[in-house]
């Protein structure tokens, strides 16, 4: 089997251009993690069900394990590493998860943070049902979700208070 053809492209992640050279079959999740070294995006199932690998593509949540890296050319990708401020200060969603104990092992957490960021950008004050519905595409095995739901409400409150805007 001969060497694979590599595609040279630039992935824009958290506003930073990253030149990569990848085969056509390279998943976006693998390119982020192993080519660029942004390992905050996690891979829990590689079939698009668990939501651990959720990133934002032009502000919309997508499963980076269901997308090829070459397909992300020309799009703005946001990962969990892009949420905190320049000095590492947690944004409103991150702070809410800490305050409400919305994470335990932390493996699913980046996917939840990205999903919730998109959810609150679209709906800044979701009802209980809207929160549950909004996170119902992400699996968590540790928390039983109760504190994640509380975290989303808390994040909405923090953002309404102007205590912090979700990035981006």
């Amino acid at each position, binding site marked *: *089997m*001969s*060497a*694979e053809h590599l595609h040279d492209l630039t992935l824009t992640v958290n506003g930073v251009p990253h030149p990569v050279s990848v*085969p056509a*079959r*390279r998943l976006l999740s*693998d390119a982020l*993690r*192993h080519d660029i*070294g*942004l*390992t*905050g*995006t*996690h*891979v*829990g*199932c*590689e*079939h698009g*069900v*668990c939501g*651990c690998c959720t990133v934002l593509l032009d502000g919309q949540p997508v499963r980076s394990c269901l997308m090829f890296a070459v397909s992300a050319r020309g799009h703005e990708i946001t*990962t*969990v*590493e892009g*949420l*905190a401020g320049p000095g*590492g200060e*947690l944004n409103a969603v*991150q702070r809410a*998860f*800490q305050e409400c*104990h919305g*994470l*335990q*092992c*932390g*493996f*699913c*957490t*980046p996917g939840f*943070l990205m999903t919730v960021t998109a959810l609150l950008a679209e709906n800044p004050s979701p009802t209980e049902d809207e929160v*549950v*519905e909004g*996170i*119902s*595409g*992400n*699996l968590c*095995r*540790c*928390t*039983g*979700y*109760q*504190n*994640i*739901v509380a975290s989303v409400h808390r994040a909405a409150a923090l953002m309404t208070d102007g205590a912090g805007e979700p990035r981006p």
Partner: protein
Amino acid sequence: MTTQLFGQPVERREDPRLLRGEGRYVDDLGRSAAAAAFVRSPHAHARVLDVDVTGALNVDGLLAVYTFEDLPERVAQPLPLLIPHPALTHPRTQYALARDEINHVGEAVVMVVATDRYRAEDAAERVAVTYEPLAPVVGLEQSEAARTLVHADVPGNRGAHMVQQVGDAPAAIAAAPHRLDFRLDIERSASTPLEGRGVYARWDAQDDSLRVYSSTQTPTGVRAAIAAILELADAKVEVIAPDVGGGFGVKIMHPWPEEILVPWAARTLGREVKWTEDRREHFVAANHERAQEQHVSVGFDDEGRILGLDVTFLHDHGAYTPYGIIVPIITSTQLPGPYRLPAYRVEFSSLYTNTVAVTPYRGAGRPQGVFAMERTVDRIAAHLGLDRTEVRARNFVLPDEMPYDLGLIFQDGRPAIYDSGDFPESLRMLKELIDWDGFTAVRAAAAAEGRRLGIGLGCYVEGTGVGPYEGGHVHVETNGRVMVSTGLSTQGQGHETVFAQIVATELGVPMADVHVTTGDTRRFGYAVGTFASRAAVMSGNAIALAARSVRAKAVKVAADALEANPDDMEIVDGVVRVKGSPADAIPLRQVAVLSNPLRYSFSEEAKAATQFAAPADPDEPPIPRGEAPGLESRDYYSPIRSTFANGMHAVIVEVDPDTAEVKVLRYAVVHDCGNLINPRIVEGQIHGGVAQGVAGALYERMAYDEHGQLLNASFMDFLMPYATEVPRIETAHLQTPSPLNPLGIKGAGEAGVIPGAAAIAAAIEDAEGYPIMRMPLSPDDLFRLRREHAEEAAS
């Protein structure tokens, strides 16, 4: 001011890192490592006739292909039997790579190493294995019938048989005014952490040493196994559990074949090798739990008091018994729960099947035992027409009977003796929380709207904090940092936080100064592991004892320096001072300097500890006899026996009259794990456990077909609950401290899952009006049950 941090719901120390995406899980490490992939058996039971690797050899990036024939002698031995037991008469463990026989779908046959995972999988799929399929044994009934054997040399497929008894249960049942006999079934489930297994090994040829990162609940166990099997000195093997993306029991199993093969390949190839399990591999190659078939006989009096209980059960331990028979032993010994059983007999057979091996999953045999006991109590109540809580209250072990000896031998080989608990008070709290007595009205109001509601409860006692020991090391550095380490590892329980709370409280330092490391053999080499709800009890107490020694030493050194009486000293906010005289004070970091007599100074502060700095007694050595330099201490906690936590759950369900869908409307938990170190974290543990309990009752099962194929080996088909399936959980805490350990704590990690299936079965039974004798229960199952009972009623 130093706050009393023990008992406070402080925010977690580990969170900022994890929230920024800066967690470091195994697959986040080793970007330049070669990748391993495995060829796994598609058959449940087969002979391996031939392995042809030629198709893989021209794959670009291939580094190595290994079959059983390639393994050195020691690696080619069967993997260890971790927990031998006299009742396990026919133990069998697997080979790291299959030798000649396959015993479950997913068993590793060939290991491929390539420059990246894509190429490794390209090569793996070009390996041709020729199998001779054999008849598989799937399920307990087939295994017990033993028309086909899993292992040709294990008669009756029976790996273990064990009986424990207190009194003469058969005689007590025969003499009892009432007797009931019935069968219960529980299906398979599994821990299913979101991060699967993973191993990353770095061989250092210059140093002749090995460093292994593994997603494990026991780095010291993995190190011992690797050192033994790869024939290396312990000191030349370091094992680190970095951030671990959930464990729930499955990662206490060790060594996995991959934990031996990946380090071996790294040494053989002279380069870093990493293997990251994918989701399908986790379903078919990481262990499962739960499945049992139980036969219960119970004798009781007119008031519902149990006179004798006789339980015989079959336990499906899958293809191998690497973890011994811990799960069915726990079922046997924890089955009595909070009840006084004047006569109890329990007998189990642990049977082989051609399925993935069974080792502990959160709860570890207790959900099955509790299911048997609680279903039994509910049957008694139904038989006598009594309130289910009343029958429970009449059978409870009472607080003044503590410590209460069950007369059984627990999983640690020691007597099962309940150390404390107040079951009547827990039940009172639970009834109040769920408004048990008000439910009749709730049910009637719902019925008026055409809705069908039911209520149920489940009680349990959980042996936690099993030995043999854990250790802790506390070191105050000369910069004031308090470095803490313990050997067991963390999978989301917040150990960095709770252990820091303990040390901050014991030592009198700000929590921000305390830095905790877990699961790293470089920092602490003696440990057992994180399982059996033991980390807080074992390492928490060990760390507390170490912190107390450090405190005593600090006070002594400071008292010498200040020419004060040690009894008059206190440590507040990191400063050792004379009580009532805050000016006579010395910071801990300075005490740390003074505790280490120096020849060479390295800073302004260090000068004070050099040999010409202060007058000293010329007739005494600089370090008093029996003492050691440095403000540090290492201590161990080794309990006489386990401490027993307990709890009670109550559930209100609504069953759909048409679709048979079950919806949990309310879920109430009363929990008693002794003193709480961090209530926020304990609540989180309960929530997660309850979610797994609900999952095990209504959604999750391992669906093996008759060929031993796992039909639902993906998250598309294995129904792990999302937020939409888990109810809101209401909790209340009772705190009866354990008299067995210095902190008065009991384990909390597994509790939430234990009575879930029992309580939900009870609630469905209450709503439907006929007995629920098996779990889990899908809408389809419930629909069939309804139809059967309707047909029975009609005929």
